[in-house]
């Protein structure tokens, strides 16, 4: 299973803190995983993360097993069974 955790404003939007999806093999990317999740749930959320060209908006960090995907293969990072994905829009002010 793949554990997908939502934090902060995304958690409020989805009214749920985590989802579990079965792995479909090693070829799936993080972007494909999130698209698959969106099809399964009633509330669209990808428009909060990606623009029309599929580029990430600044503001939300996506982590796989504690590492920001910008230090992996970004949205092309492959997902494997047992991975923990976290989506977190941090507060910027102080």
């Amino acid at each position, binding site marked *: 299973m793949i554990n997908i955790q939502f*934090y902060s404003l995304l958690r409020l939007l989805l009214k749920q803190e985590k989802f579990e999806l079965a792995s479909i093999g090693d070829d799936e990317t993080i972007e494909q995983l999130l698209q698959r999740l969106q099809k399964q749930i009633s509330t669209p959320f990808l428009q909060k993360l990606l623009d029309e060209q599929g580029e990430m908006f600044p503001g939300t960090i996506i982590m796989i097993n504690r590492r920001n995907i910008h230090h992996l293969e970004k949205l092309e990072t492959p997902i494997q069974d047992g991975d923990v994905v976290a989506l977190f829009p*941090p507060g910027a002010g102080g």
Partner: protein
Amino acid sequence: MPAAERYNRQILHWGKDRQQLLRAATALIAGVGGLGATVSQLLVRAGIGKLYLVDDGLVDWPDLNRQLLYNETDIGQPKLTIAKQRLQQINKDVTIEVLQKRIDQSFQPPADVSIIADCLDNYPSRFHLEASLETGSFLIHGGIEGDQGQVLTLQKGISQSLADIFTSAQQPQGDIPVTGSGATILSGFMVNEIFNTIFFQPQLLNRFLIVGLSDLHLAFLDV
């Protein structure tokens, strides 16, 4: 006023040994605004040994909803001038040094700092602050935006860096929404973690505490 009497209520809670640890600690507060003004005040009230305050701002009207050290009569004054004056009125036994500067790539923290509070309001300064620290230093990060905020403790050179964690989290355009209640709640969590860290028991080392103020949720995220 003897310390035993002044700090009686908290010594009942954490004991004399921890009060001594607090007395021996030196903290640097980076940013004395919504978070930093309250963090510094609580540390001074608790009897920390020494504080360094770093900021380059002047008190302005939009600060007054949440920056608890400042009043209407302070508008236009350097924040650090006012902050030091108010903090010394609260507790003259605490040594307070001010560093009137913006934190950029030239920043170097004083050598005697034992713990650092990131109360800044922008990512570039946060990353410069972290980069300036010696290996092994404890950094307590706090951030708030609207009704969401987070606290995280990192140990320089051992934890992931803040810059690595927050890669792609760009600064929002314009003013950031912050309320007095939100800033005060996040400040309280920061100070609680500063105490824990001074007492050698950080609870948020490599672990975000994420605070949702509208639906009152707390969540952890390991990094």
